[in-house]
């Protein structure tokens, strides 16, 4: 991963016309060490064009204007900045529309701040290299071509879905991953659940990959979700 040293390119541009929500988002992201600047749709687009934005967070409708149109134009011009679309339009159709227009993620309002932050962090740390064939955290190694997982010298047998779940974690070490993210990305379920099914899947996965007497690789983050961490 090439990290840009310029602080300007680390700026997250926030396009949101609800001043109070914008302020809360700003405070929260500031707290986490990101530089955040609120902007109009046009300002955000211009900044993205010249590489002055590390990420765009765009409300779907800003002062009556649909920001997806601008996003579509940006994508056509080849601007690759990560974009998180937040919107009160919550149907699956709208979400698909948002992603098709070039959004990297789409979060429906109202959302919990932990969910929002997790999405932002996931986008800020774009996947290193999608073509990687081996993923490794500590002594856990996954071979994407052979479809095998080893913990040290011990081979671990995983069901296809468990493999996918673990791959999702291994690609995002040290990142907070919410239940909703897992549901959407691993199972492609775009609805909320009133049960703790995801937790059960995680705990089953833990049983398979964790060594005896050692702290689990996947830890619970209270009120938010999970995180894969080698030195937990």
């Amino acid at each position, binding site marked *: 991963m090439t990290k840009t040293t310029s602080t300007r390119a680390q700026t997250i541009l926030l396009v949101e016309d609800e001043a109070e929500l914008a302020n809360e988002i700003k405070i929260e992201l500031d707290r986490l060490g990101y530089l955040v600047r609120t902007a109009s749709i046009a300002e955000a687009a211009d900044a993205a064009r010249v590489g002055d934005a590390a990420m765009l967070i765009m409300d779907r409708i800003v002062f009556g204007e649909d920001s997806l149109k601008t996003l579509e134009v940006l994508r056509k011009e080849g601007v690759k900045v990560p974009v998180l679309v937040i919107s009160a339009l919550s*149907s699956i159709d709208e979400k698909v529309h948002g992603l098709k227009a070039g959004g990297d993620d789409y979060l*429906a309002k109202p959302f919990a701040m932990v969910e929002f932050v997790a999405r932002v962090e996931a986008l800020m740390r774009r996947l290193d290299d999608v073509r990687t064939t081996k993923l490794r955290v500590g002594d856990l190694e996954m071979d994407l071509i052979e479809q095998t997982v080893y913990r040290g010298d011990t081979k671990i047998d995983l069901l296809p879905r468990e493999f996918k779940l673990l791959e999702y974690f291994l690609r995002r070490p040290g990142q907070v991953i919410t239940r909703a993210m897992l549901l959407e990305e691993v*199972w492609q*379920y*775009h*609805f909320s659940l009133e*049960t703790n*099914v995801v937790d059960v899947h995680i705990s089953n996965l833990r049983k398979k990959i964790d060594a005896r007497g050692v702290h689990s690789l996947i830890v619970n983050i209270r009120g938010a979700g999970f995180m894969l961490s080698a030195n937990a």
Partner: protein
Amino acid sequence: MREFFRSSAVRVALAFVLATTVATTAVFGLVYLQIREANEARNRLILEDEAAKSVNHSVDELRNAFEVRMTHDLRRLDYAALFGAERKLLFGNIDALPAIPPDGKSHYVTASRAPGGDNLLEPAVFVARERPDGTILLLGRSLLETLAFRRIVQSALATGLAPMLLLALAIGAFFARRASRRLTTIHDTIALIMKGDTHLRLPVRSRNDTIDKISRDVNLMLDEIMRLLVQIKGVSDNIAHDLRSPLAVVHAQLERGLESSDDEQLRAVVKQALSHIDKAMLTVSALLRLADVEYGPKSSKFRSIDLSAICTELFEFYEPLATSKSIHMTLETQSPVAILGDGDLMREAVSNLIGNAIKFTPEHGTVSVSVTQEDGRPVVRVRDNGIGVEPGERDKIFQRFYRTASGHRVPGSGLGLSIASAIANLHDFDLRFDDNDPGAVFEMAGRKK
């Protein structure tokens, strides 16, 4: 006035008048031409025939015949004369030979004074023929009759056209006025509807013409818009109502927190308030979701989906949860059960049913999922032997926010079954409850066509 002519109705009326005029004149003209043509052809033939025959008669015979013809039979010949050498009149009723060749063919001669003669020749058809003795026979027929006929046709057209034009104008104006009156009514009604008289509808008569058809369509559209308006109002009323109570609770808690001087107590209050707000947000999301399914446009994503595959996938998703609660879970599918639908929504509906079943089944219970075709209808059944639903509550469980007395201890929005039911409905499926004694069976079945 300009507006009057611009109105399409008036334009149609004027075009109607113009078309009538053109058509009538054309018919008259055609009839006239046809008759004249036939008449002339006959006359020419007779003249040429007579001239040919007279070649064989002697001069005296001709003189006699002329006299008889001229005095008794005037229907066929108007002019007959015989000219001698140097074109001098021997006898007959024309002074001079017209300027036509003596070739036995008929020629049309317009009204002109015959050269050297005194009498005025009317338009006529003449035949001149040179006889073997060098004399020239001239026969002719006046075209006065044809001209008179033309005048009759012309005057008939003139006298007939005027009233016809008036009639066409009157009819056109009548239709134009009627159409514009109806359009004005429609215009006025729409203006009233836009002002807020939403119960008004466009007038529709029984005759079913284009305007009626469009009016009927507009009325149907208005009905649909009104239906949606009422439903939107229903949804927002519900949302307002269901958010009021958690908001009131949060309000009370925060007030209590404000008065407390103990930091620890304050933290506890904030935590409680947060969890209530989380619940409220969950409710808002669920309600929006429900509104989406119930009132949104029928998804454009309907395609062939396999219920067996969806249920198998959800079975695998939920089985670990069931196992963790020591619940035995079984799956029975006939592969594949294809329906037309939205896969995401169907997954959500079945997920709600299985999630509920696991939620309300105690340890060591059984949850079974089955997908079958019965009488050609696809049927998904989720059966459990858990706490079931009390007979008095069975018709209420699909209502929004209804939570059974025994289910109150289990967390949830109270909207899961409403959403499942709305999704079923969208797919022309019925979601029904049955008693499993003990436990519940939720059956989602395609409606009979």
